[in-house]
């Protein structure tokens, strides 16, 4: 569950930096929006994400972006998720 949310947050940041509100919009709901921030802060402490205050559309915002380690972690999580999907289908077809 936690790894799943981590992967979704990392995926929401893939390729383009975003502030917290934008990250929650990119996620497909399902969790209270405020609970995404503790995940962002932990990922930042873990070195998977970095953030800084920037002016965006005339407002000062905390922008998040993936670090190199974060991109690697996202690839690994995506590969693991893909492997789970393969296993599920293999089991289904083998019945």
């Amino acid at each position, binding site marked *: 569950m936690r790894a799943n949310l981590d992967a979704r947050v990392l995926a929401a940041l893939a390729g383009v930096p975003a502030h*917290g509100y934008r990250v929650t919009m990119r996620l497909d709901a399902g969790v209270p929006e*405020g609970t995404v921030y503790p995940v962002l*802060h932990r990922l930042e402490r873990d070195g998977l994400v970095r953030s800084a205050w920037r002016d965006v559309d005339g407002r000062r915002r*905390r922008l998040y972006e993936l670090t190199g380690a974060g991109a690697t972690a996202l690839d690994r999580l995506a590969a693991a998720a893909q492997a789970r999907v393969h296993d599920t289908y293999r089991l289904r077809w083998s019945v």
Partner: protein
Amino acid sequence: MTDAIDAYLDDLLVELHGRARDVRRILVEAEQHLRDAADEGVRAGLTADEATRQAVERFGSARLVARRFAAEAPPVLSRRFLGQAALALVLLGGVGLVAVGVSGGVAAGMGSAFGKTFVSGDSPDVVYTPARCAYFLEYYPGPTCEQAATAHHFDEVVFYRLAAGAAGLLALGGWWLARRRGWFGSEEVGLLPDGFVPTIGAAVFGLAAAGLLAQGVGQIVVDTSNGAGQYVSAGLVSLAVAAWFVRSLVHVLAARTGGSTLATS
């Protein structure tokens, strides 16, 4: 006027624990998020009030969000937490020692007003051995052994307490310095529960006041007033300190429940 977002942020501030700069960052991000969400709701055709209400609802309750932050935070028994607990104990101990010192002054005043026997006189049925009597008379020459003993005890009551008060001032000085310099993580917000020090202080000093006053007054009523002043002096000071802690606690609780005495705009 306070809107629903301000009210939510107030609740969130009360619930959050951690370093001041982290708490401030969380509050700023939460406010930006909520105002973005409300603006988007208005653009989608909602009234401002409804858009704000929905934004707050989608964000999750302040308690839930704060809990998630706490769950994601480093271990609770951090150096900073232990430092704050140590600082709280130093504050309580320092206040306690200063209170003892003040009670020494009060005892001295009672000695002047009601006589030293009231503060440190032994019970009339006490019998002094010749050796003990000689000891008292050597240091406190006087017409009777009883008066010499009273003078000896009086000095002990007053000066030992004043010495404890001086130690308390040193402890409070150390506490003040530690807070000012930010040692032991004094920049933390809410690592200890709100009102921790006033609650402990009110309970400890309240119990001490009750016990000491019961001892002193009970002694006067049931037996003799000799020596009752040492308990009454300490009891009265304990009562004053307990009242001061209760007042602090009421302020903390009033702030927590929104009963601030500051004018609202």
